């Protein structure tokens, strides 16, 4: 048991990070009935924007870049953490302008459009930032190691898990405790009624898509110091995100969070005892759950069902 505990702890932290990835995805699916296959690419895009803000990428080697590199890393990191997701959110809102044409049509149209958008974003990243692997530099305050129970853990990973926990709580509070959240939820439940009450449905959808994309970008900035940064990172991300919302139940906030923690535990524990199966374990978990409950753990009748 003493050897299992660290892996459970590691799995929990991993699960919180998976939840952060799935959060924006579940928001867009739940509210807008669009499966956004570009979610992973927006995740990567947020991280690439953060890389540029930190001083890499486009401005590297220029006079502006040299001046900017003189600013302390901690300050640049905070700005990257704030503006990387914002820029990803803006990109998401631009994407939503294209997705609009698919509203009210079969879900396949939105699926194909966002799949195409994912390819376009990935290629744009290759052109803009190159094809090689990049890494985000971290301030010393959140770097290094910490000793817990005689074992060494990554301090940054604990920071990232804590940050994910705060982000989850903030999104929940926003949806449940603010009038904006109420409008978003009402829009998901009965969009025509929301329109009849005088709310601009187009603007609402644009904001939700932007928020979901910004959350993807935020997850990107937080996760990339652990996973590394490369143009096709989006593909690595969208699959677990999709799996988590299917496992938790489409549109269920807590379903996504609990499913993410289950996936984290499965990956963390199999990584310790049957490492070759660590990535496979999440798919086996999904198969096991949907075999008995096809709507996932907390899925209500999905808006995608007709």
């Amino acid at each position, binding site marked *: 048991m003493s*050897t299992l505990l*660290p*892996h459970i702890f*590691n799995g929990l932290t*991993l699960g919180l990070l998976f939840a952060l990835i799935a959060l924006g995805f579940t928001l867009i699916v739940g509210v807008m009935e669009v499966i956004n296959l570009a979610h992973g690419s927006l995740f990567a895009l947020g991280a690439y924007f953060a890389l540029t803000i930190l001083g890499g990428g486009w401005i590297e080697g220029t006079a502006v870049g040299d001046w900017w590199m003189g600013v302390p890393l901690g300050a640049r990191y905070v700005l990257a953490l704030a503006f990387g997701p914002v820029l990803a959110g803006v990109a998401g809102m631009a994407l939503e302008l294209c997705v609009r044409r698919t509203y009210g049509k079969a879900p396949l149209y939105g699926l194909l459009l966002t799949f195409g958008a994912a390819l376009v974003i990935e290629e744009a990243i*290759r052109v803009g930032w190159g*094809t*090689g*692997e990049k*890494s985000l530099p971290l301030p010393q305050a959140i*770097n*290094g*190691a910490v000793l817990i129970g005689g*074992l*060494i*853990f*990554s*301090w*940054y*990973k604990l920071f990232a898990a804590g940050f994910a926990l705060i982000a989850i709580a903030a999104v929940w509070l926003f949806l449940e405790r603010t009038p904006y959240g109420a409008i978003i939820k009402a829009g998901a439940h009965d969009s025509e009624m929301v329109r009849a009450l005088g709310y601009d449905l187009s603007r609402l959808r644009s904001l939700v898509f932007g928020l979901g994309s910004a959350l993807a970008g935020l997850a990107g900035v937080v996760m990339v110091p*652990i*996973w*590394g940064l*490369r*143009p*096709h990172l989006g593909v*690595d991300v969208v699959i677990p995100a999709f799996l988590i919302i299917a496992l938790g139940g489409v549109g269920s906030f807590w379903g996504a969070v609990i499913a993410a923690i289950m996936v984290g535990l499965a*990956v*963390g524990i199999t*990584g*310790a005892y049957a*490492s*070759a199966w*660590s*990535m496979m374990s999440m798919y086996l978990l999904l198969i096991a759950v949907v075999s008995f409950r096809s709507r996932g753990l907390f899925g209500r009748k999905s808006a995608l069902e007709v």
Partner: protein
Amino acid sequence: MSRNSLSRRSFFTRSGALIAGATLIGPWKLNRAYAADKPLKLGITSDASGQYANSGASDRRGMMMAIEEFNAKGGILGRKIETVHIDTETTPATGTRVAERMITREECGFLIGAVSSGVANAISQVAQKYGVVYLNTNSSSPSESGENCHRVKFVWDGNGTNFAKAAVKNSIDSFGKKWLLLTNDYVWGHDTAAATRKLLEQYGGEVIDEILVPQGTRDFSSALLSIQNAAPSVVAAAVGGDDQKALRQQVAQLGMGQKPAWINNQQDWPDVYGLPLDNLFGVFGTTWYYKLDLPGVADFVKRYQEMYPDTAMRVPGNVFYNGYMSTRELLRAIERAGTTSNIAVIKQLEGLKVSAEDRMQHHDAWIDPNTHQMQQTIYLATANEGTQDTDDMFKILTSSSPQDVEDTDAAGKCKLESYDDTPTFDA
């Protein structure tokens, strides 16, 4: 009568055409020839994306420098050398498609390039089908010159067995007998781990555990916790490309670089160039280093810098070196053969011997005609602590002769196709 005479003439004419046709295209094997007055087209099959994107780019730069040098001298056999590059994406299935396209549609006469052994194996199967000579420049699974060898394929990098032979015995003596293997879960990782296991048994070491790491792993926290629990004396890592870069960063972040001891089978230069020096923990193998105190090295570095003044990698590494050396030797072999006919070029390469001076290594090198692997000097290195030069990251510890690190099992496993079973091909 006249009808018989006409029939006879017709018979001989058609028979002659049939024999000539059979010689060229034959019902039993595919034979090809491209026009000799056209430029010689080389197909560059290196990764531009995926786990080995960085190394693929370095490999490509090496090939291009050798080609540029030949073109500056007037090309090869009076023909200009042209290149076609298609990204093999560090994916074997893509490697197969790229090789098919390069041979059948792009009319490439020779294929060059690989970092991933899975991709190299896939390309070489296609190349053998058409009889096109293929240079595996940088992939180092022992199976590439063992069970997956082919008559058309030549392997230029040191392999997992060569590096393990250079490292295992000394490391048991220096660090201890309890070893844990951290293995990339694909052909190179498995073959290298198998070679390490065998040597450990031979020298009295013990494998206490093996952790398989799927390709594309970025979060090594589970593996690093397991290593802490197992408390080995040595971790023998066969993890490559961007996976290895992530591993190094995470091990350094946890301060685990000194204890346990780390032996990294082979350290490709693009995987560590630019990383902080504390990421470069442990002992690792390489085939070449840009600061070797040998004739020609400084000039080689200068030529690299003149050709690639803007590249982020300011000095060449082992991957560039292999890309350059393999391409140069292929072009020299064509020159010596006086033809681009595949069998003639293969025979030239099978008899290849290169002096230490010409290869800028400590020992003479040669192609083993039974396995088609370049037998060469293997170096062990560690981080160059205390240096002020950010490029000068390695401190070379030892140099082993090709005889000392020979992969003696390869010849038994390698069954090269006969010349008769290899389709003739003239580029």
